[in-house]
């Protein structure tokens, strides 16, 4: 039963090879879908291109449905996988700072790597910016960030537990919400000025 490496079904030596393969798949799909273009990505905020919403939601829902079916068939033990811990204050503030980073810089870290690899100079300097930002954070961690970083720790809850509903009902609701979002956003570009990029 998965996860195979933590369960010692296959050796830990495979870990980095799997990492490389996962990365190749991730990078190939992102670039192929157009995530190497900041103007295509920014379209999601201005209504002229919704590729981010479509890829992002489809991927999250596909993975969630797959993982929970894997659990249902007892192919994976979901109690052994990494669940992001919820530190409410830092998750929110960090998210807000990243939101500004996205609308100002046009990329996020993963997409900037894709952009840089196909020659986007703005993506390369964006990566330089991330490096500087993390360096600044590291140098000022104790002074500025530590308290916020550790504030309001709420464990590693799952969203359907937080909402008090079953996992199946949540996934169904999320899927319906995504389909509605796909349909609505397909109409929006008809009403906004076309942007060529």
């Amino acid at each position, binding site marked *: 039963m998965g996860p195979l490496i933590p369960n010692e079904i296959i050796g830990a030596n495979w870990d980095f090879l799997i990492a490389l393969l996962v990365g190749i798949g991730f990078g190939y799909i992102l670039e192929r879908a157009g995530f190497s273009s900041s103007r295509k990505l920014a379209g999601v905020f201005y209504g002229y291109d919704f590729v981010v919403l479509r890829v992002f939601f489809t991927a999250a829902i596909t993975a969630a449905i797959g993982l929970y079916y894997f659990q249902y068939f007892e192919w994976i033990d979901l109690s052994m996988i990494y669940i992001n811990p919820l530190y409410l204050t830092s998750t929110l503030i960090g998210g807000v700072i990243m*939101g500004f980073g996205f609308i100002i810089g046009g990329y996020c870290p993963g997409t900037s790597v894709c952009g840089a690899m*196909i020659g*986007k*100079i703005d993506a390369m300097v964006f990566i330089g910016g991330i490096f500087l930002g993390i360096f600044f954070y590291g140098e000022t961690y104790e002074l500025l960030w530590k308290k916020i970083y550790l504030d309001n720790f709420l464990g590693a809850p799952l969203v359907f537990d937080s909402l008090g509903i079953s996992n199946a009902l949540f996934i169904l609701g999320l899927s319906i919400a995504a389909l509605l979002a796909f349909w609505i956003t397909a109409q929006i570009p008809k009403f906004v000025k076309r942007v060529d990029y």
Partner: protein
Amino acid sequence: MENKVLENKRKYMNPYLAGFLLGLVIIFAFYYTGRGLGASGAIKSAVVASVDAVAHKHALASEFYAPYASKEESPLNSWLVFEIIGVMIGALISGIVAGRLKLKVEHSPKISSKTRLIMAVLGGVLFGIGSQLGRGCTSGAALTGMATLSTAGFVSMLAIFGTGYTFAWFFRKFWI
């Protein structure tokens, strides 16, 4: 122009197919390793390795660097670093296949290349800080967090995109 748009359309994968395939990649990652995707973590490793190489004592004295700098092995010997090397290879292959390899600064015609580059650095700095505070970026915190149905993933996604939508109007001249 019409032709160029059509040509671009053909070169991009259908977004729903891309999303479905990306979902399979996430399942594959969890099934084998028990963890999902990430991007900012690899750059963090590069920062820690650089600081450690230049000022080892300083790194050991810092609560931020010490957990990685104090280990025997290099901070670069990490899962996320190998994963991001994969991302680079994958993106390059796709760029070659789609014929998109071209050195350029991509920007709205309303702003200069210089403005775009300054904004890109600034955005990167903010993403660097935000990803450390938020324990991951759009890949690790939001996308992978949502895939496992973690509450943190949904909070992170809402915070990132909620902020983007709320303030998009103020930054519109940089994009449209």
